[in-house]
């Protein structure tokens, strides 16, 4: 029996050899997987820009103590609602202006990056690990267990995500931790479905049978044999969920159901600023811009990641 690869080589091998003499050269040793990944990823210049911006935001979060001109909660009573440095009436002591209680907006945004990034990271870690567990069990076990898990996921997917998150927060009470738990629960079905689909398609492969024949137990087959080969779609989904988690946490914060004031979380900052929307544009503009830039960077990077990890896109 010939594999699809054999067939392809048989069909086009001669043509290729004639067209490009290089095909007859001795084969170059296979590149390291990471290097190969990077070469695909780097082809998408937007993705690299996204990665750089994300790294800068990470750096900002790590070095917030050093970078921020003031503390996140420092109040300057003589500079309430001061416009940004370049605007009329502004001062460069507060480059992005101050809010209604005289806190430096730039410093709050810098400190806020810590919250947004950790929300993204924790939510993705939680739902990715639970999703992998549920998905692999469903895919591996099949039958009743699979039906039960997947119907539960269908039900969760029927409820609009923000609505479900609001319900969970309504039960647990509003706080950043509960908002993260709520968002992680909301994202669980996507990871479970992906992990299950990948597991089912991998389970038919010969290497899984070989591993079973060699005497590997269910746990070893699931986590050691199947899981590593299911990762590419999960990684792409994780990137996309990372950006949506930042957005959803900010949305919950904005609704007063996430981080509570005076936490400098970007969504919560916007909620505080709502009443000044017509009188002090800077209080509203910059925290939102911070959310947009971060989410956009992650999404652009996610696009590049998908292209680089998707085997169908590879031309080799």
């Amino acid at each position: 029996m010939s594999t699809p690869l054999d067939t392809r080589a048989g069909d086009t091998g001669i043509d290729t050899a004639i067209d490009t003499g290089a095909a007859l050269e001795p084969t170059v040793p296979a590149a390291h997987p990471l290097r190969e990944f990077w070469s695909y990823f780097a082809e998408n210049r937007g993705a690299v820009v996204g990665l750089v911006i994300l790294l800068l935001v990470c750096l900002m979060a790590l070095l917030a103590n050093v970078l921020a001109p003031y503390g996140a909660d420092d109040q300057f009573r003589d500079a309430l609602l001061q416009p940004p440095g370049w605007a009329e009436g502004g001062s460069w002591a507060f480059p992005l202006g101050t809010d209604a209680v005289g806190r430096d907006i730039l410093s709050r945004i810098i400190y806020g990056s810590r919250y947004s990034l950790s929300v993204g990271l924790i939510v993705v870690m939680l739902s990715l690990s639970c999703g992998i567990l549920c998905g692999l069990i469903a895919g591996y076990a099949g039958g009743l267990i699979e039906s039960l898990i997947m119907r539960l996921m269908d039900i969760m997917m029927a409820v609009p995500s923000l609505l479900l998150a609001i319900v969970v927060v309504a039960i647990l009470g509003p706080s950043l931790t509960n908002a993260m738990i709520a968002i992680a629960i909301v994202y669980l079905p996507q990871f479970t479905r992906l992990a299950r689909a990948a597991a089912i398609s991998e389970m038919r492969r010969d290497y899984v049978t070989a591993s079973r024949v060699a005497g590997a137990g269910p746990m070893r087959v699931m986590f050691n044999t199947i899981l590593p080969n299911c990762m590419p779609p999960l990684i792409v989904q994780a990137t996309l969920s990372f950006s949506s988690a930042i957005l959803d946490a900010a949305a919950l914060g904005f609704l007063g159901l996430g981080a509570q004031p005076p936490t400098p979380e970007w969504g919560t900052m916007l909620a505080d600023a709502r009443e000044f929307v017509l009188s002090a544009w800077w209080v509203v503009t910059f925290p939102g811009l911070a959310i947009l830039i971060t989410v956009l960077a992650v999404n652009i990077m996610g696009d590049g990641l998908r292209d680089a990890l998707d085997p169908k896109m590879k031309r080799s």
Partner: protein
Amino acid sequence: MLRFILRRLGLVIPTFFGITVIAFGLVRLIPGDPIRLMAGIHGVSPERHAELMHQYGFDQPIWLQYLDFLNELFHGNLGISLVTRTPVLMDFFARFPATLELSIAAMLFAILVGVPAGVIAGVKRGSLFDHTVMGAALGGYSMPIFWWGLLMIVIFAGLLGWAPVSGRIDAFYFIDSITGFMLIDTLLQGNTDAFISAVQHLILPAFVLSTIPLAVIARQTRSAMLEVLGEDYVRTARAKGLSSRRVIGLHALRNALIPVVTVVGLQVGLLFAGAILTETIFSWPGVGKWLVDAVYRRDYPSVQGGVLLIATMVMLVNLSVDLLYGLIDPRIRYGRA
């Protein structure tokens, strides 16, 4: 086709019961007992507490409570709001037309702009237009719409003064609710000025709410178009000498629209989520704002009823999209049968 419909309906029923379990569990999962919660800060005497526990059936086994809840549900009783003391169903449907009006306007805008933009971007792949549309779509997809709404208010209501800040209509118009849709009601009552005011109030929120669906629809239409344009039948149509407009408009577009229909359907769930934020920003008196207010006031019967109704509606929309999908594309109907 009948088998397809039956199979699809078979999937909906367990999902619906799942939703009822979530809504039922909601009030029961809240820490503390529901009677004390309803009593609030005033508290309740032990005798009255026992009486109320019995009256609401909280002293019965949980499965009996659930059956009772289902029984009430099928009789159209979703409970009484703790705040307004009116039936939740009435509160919900008093506000629902406002949300529907906003969502329909947003969806229409998203489709009317998103589909042509996606088609042109797909046909002119790699052009400046393509790059602009895809860049804008990525931006729209990444947009925190609560911020986008505030920004629109700053620009169009604050700086330019072109649009009102909030509400459905200027406060000095008194429009009797006939259909609940402000645009239709003002027209039915022949009040042109009120109609114009209603349109002015609708534009900004609808535009903000349409941002994400617009981005998703444009992206999906473009990729569906690219896929279809590479198909053999399109090449055949071109080879026959048909005009480019005919090939794209008739042969390619009809097939490209199949996945777009699904995406439009899937956006309905997102639209409800977006409506929660958009309505809060623009003080739009719809179900989204009502639900958030109910959460603030810890009005659990309203939260429970609202979740149940919205989730059921989203489920029914998804069902109709699936059925429609089977109708447009026979491969779906027979392929999986």
